[in-house]
């Protein structure tokens, strides 16, 4: 399977290279390192969110509330910043992580303890968290002029040639890579996604592991909340409305199987990059937004078809065992 995963990621990488090549024919400067750095930076938030979603999908669950969590947490830190500009940014980031964690823990608790399917739980909290944003803000916006300069400039500060936002994305990617390959939790996430029954027998607590993944996706949603608000310098109830679908699309294009258990950090990152390039670059070369949608949609279906081909082989083995038994 490892070989195949690599194969799949290489496919995706090739797809991205072709896309960049095609865009370069129309927009010569596109493939410049400086511009590619810019594309990476532009896609950072989506990459971070896709990684949070990935761990949830790996456990055969889904988190539809990530964008609403982002909106709520973003509003909370924006209002805090507007009211108390003296709070240092790192403290605000910790607050964002904590608020996101609480929202994620609510999802996780409902999935774990009340045994409600995650799609139902997060469909509910998708609305609730956005509604809660309205309640805390009273429907008002937080505008750029209410935010402190530090709040806005933190992620733009250049460090070793890259903006802070890119460094944060790289750090998150590295942490997820280590977590998925080198920790007990990461291994458990894959195991319960592939075979929950066998995992129970092996002494893995499936419910608790699901709780943990929702806490992770919640924290990621919270972190992305601060990054999003400080990037687009406006906090409102409408922030990232419907963006949960982009996050899930990035995962699916990145080869994360909706059936759970299959997917990698590299895949999620590349899936997000692919979508990021489409949405950032195509308008520049005057391709209409409708074509963009068609291209993203085709990429999703193509990815699912390729993944299904990859998974078919093991499906046969399961069938053979069932017959022989």
């Amino acid at each position, binding site marked *: *399977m*490892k070989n195949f995963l690599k194969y799949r990621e290489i496919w995706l990488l090739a797809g991205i290279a072709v896309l960049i090549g095609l865009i370069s024919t129309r927009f010569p400067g596109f493939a410049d390192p400086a511009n590619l750095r810019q594309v990476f930076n532009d896609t950072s938030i989506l990459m971070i969110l896709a990684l949070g979603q990935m761990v949830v999908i790996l456990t055969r669950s889904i988190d539809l509330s990530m964008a609403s969590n982002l909106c709520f947490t973003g509003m909370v830190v924006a209002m805090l910043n507007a009211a108390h500009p003296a709070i240092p940014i790192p403290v605000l980031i910790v607050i964002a992580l904590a608020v996101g964690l609480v929202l994620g823990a609510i999802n996780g608790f409902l999935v774990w303890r009340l045994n409600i399917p995650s799609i139902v739980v997060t469909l509910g909290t998708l609305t609730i968290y956005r509604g809660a944003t309205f309640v805390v803000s009273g429907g008002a916006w937080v505008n750029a002029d209410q935010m402190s300069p530090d709040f806005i400039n933190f992620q733009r500060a250049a460090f070793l040639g890259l903006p802070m936002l890119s460094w944060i994305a790289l750090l998150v990617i590295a942490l997820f890579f280590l977590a998925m390959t*080198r*920790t*007990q*939790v990461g*291994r*458990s996430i*894959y*195991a319960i996604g*592939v*075979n929950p*029954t*066998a*995992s*129970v*027998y*092996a*002494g*893995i*607590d499936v419910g608790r592991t699901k709780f943990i993944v929702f806490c992770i996706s919640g924290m990621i949603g919270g972190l992305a909340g601060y990054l999003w608000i400080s990037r687009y310098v406006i906090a409102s109830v409408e922030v990232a409305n419907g963006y949960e679908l982009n996050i899930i699309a990035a995962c699916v294009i990145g080869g994360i199987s909706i059936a759970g*258990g*299959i997917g990698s950090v590299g895949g999620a990152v590349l899936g997000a990059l692919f979508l990021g390039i489409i949405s950032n670059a195509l308008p520049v070369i005057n391709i209409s937004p409708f074509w963009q949608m068609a291209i993203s949609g085709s990429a999703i279906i193509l990815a699912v078809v390729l993944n299904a081909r990859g998974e078919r082989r*093991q499906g046969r*083995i*399961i069938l*053979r*065992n*069932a*017959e*022989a*038994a």
Partner: protein
Amino acid sequence: MLDNPYPAHVVRDPPHERGGKVAPRLTLSGISKSFPGVRALHNVSLSLYPGQVTALIGENGAGKSTLVKIMTGIYQPDAGEISIDGLATTLPSAHAAFGHGITAIHQETVLFDDLSVAENIFLGHAPRTRFGTIDWRTMRKNAREVLETMRAGHIDADARLKDLGIANKHLVAVARAMSIDARIVIMDEPTAALSMKEIEELFLLIEFLKSEGKAVLFISHKFDEIYRIADRYTVFRDGEMVGEGLLKDTGQNEIVRMMVGRNVDHIFPQREPKIGAPVLSVSGLSHPTEFDDIGFELRKGEILGFYGLVGAGRSEVMQAIAGITRTSRGTISLDGNSIAPKSAADSIEAGIVYVPEERGKQGVVIGLPIFQNVSLPSLARTSKSGVLKLAEEFSLARSYTERLDLRASSLSQDVGTLSGGNQQKVVIAKWLATTPKVIILDEPTKGIDIGSKAAVHGFMAELVAQGLSVIMVSSELPEILGMSDRVVVMREGRIAATYDNKGLDAETLVRTAAGIAA
């Protein structure tokens, strides 16, 4: 006994007893069927006669369900002939079998809970209106008529199936059979989930089917039922037909002998058991529905066999000891310390591991490499504060897979690419790697080839020689007799008897498991 509600013309005695010679309705001859690594059926024959009930008898794994699947068109035989009313035919699909009037009523009904009784009866052959839509009025009327003929008029044709009890669901299944004018009715352990009263009702229904001239195949483990209802018998053993005839000419003991007598096809390891002090003691262990008052002791260096029919509650008891099923009362103690496992992790920690029966579903994690499968229950030991030590994990996997002589090109290979026997070795390696005191093997050799079987048996002998204690749940008599030091026989959720495996014979075990007095 209930009053018989069926019409007076019911024929109590099968036609052959009235002197007439009856031609079989369905004849299977020379049927063989193999799956990769397993020979399910070899050159078997079976005849079903109109107006008679034929009982199909055999141990678990004797090939009964495979035969049912061939008769209902789900499996295709590798060789052999099927003839209906003397004409050779084939059953290439479930639809074809249905067209020949063959219908099966299963242990768990395969009807649709959310559809009405009438829809269930006429699904696939509902009456149509001129416009091609379903004619609901006629369908309801016909459903009521069919139920009426079966004296099952108390079932509302509009009721949802899920609101009916099991016995009434069986009636609906039979009504369905009647509505397609089924001529051959297969009943696969229909009484397994029924109460005594419901079984009586089912028997009256079978009498009715006989009187209607249907050929009935009745599959059951229970000898009293077979002798009550069936006219003929056919015995299968290890996928071969070993006997058939009229039940009135054949005693229970003779049939038990046919079921268990077999050629020695496999030599079990010779061992000199060194049995020590009790390691695991269980007493009064009970579950609200699955088992009651289970008590036994397992001693150091011992292989304790658990024998019983499917559904006797053996696996459920083992899952309770392994922390997967909760118990209502009773105690488990390990090395004299009482334990109350709340999860599989608790039991593994205490030193008890359970190797489940269904290798594919409960054992291997297909999609993960071999070494990750082996280390899965030992992750706490191969990691430090949640961070995995990959080298340690790998060497753990290497040492245990080498001991089991696993054939794989690399430990990073997906476990799904291995053969069944090698997958089983991975599962056993994974449990051994937790360094247990007690290892519970549930049907350890089910569905694997002879060579792998011998390896698993040899390894079990090695384990107990090293001082481990083993509980082996098995439905295979040679395995129970060849490997166990003592044998516990369970029947209907209770322990029926415990035997020392000295001069123990298979017939005693089968009689105890089935509840037949010697």
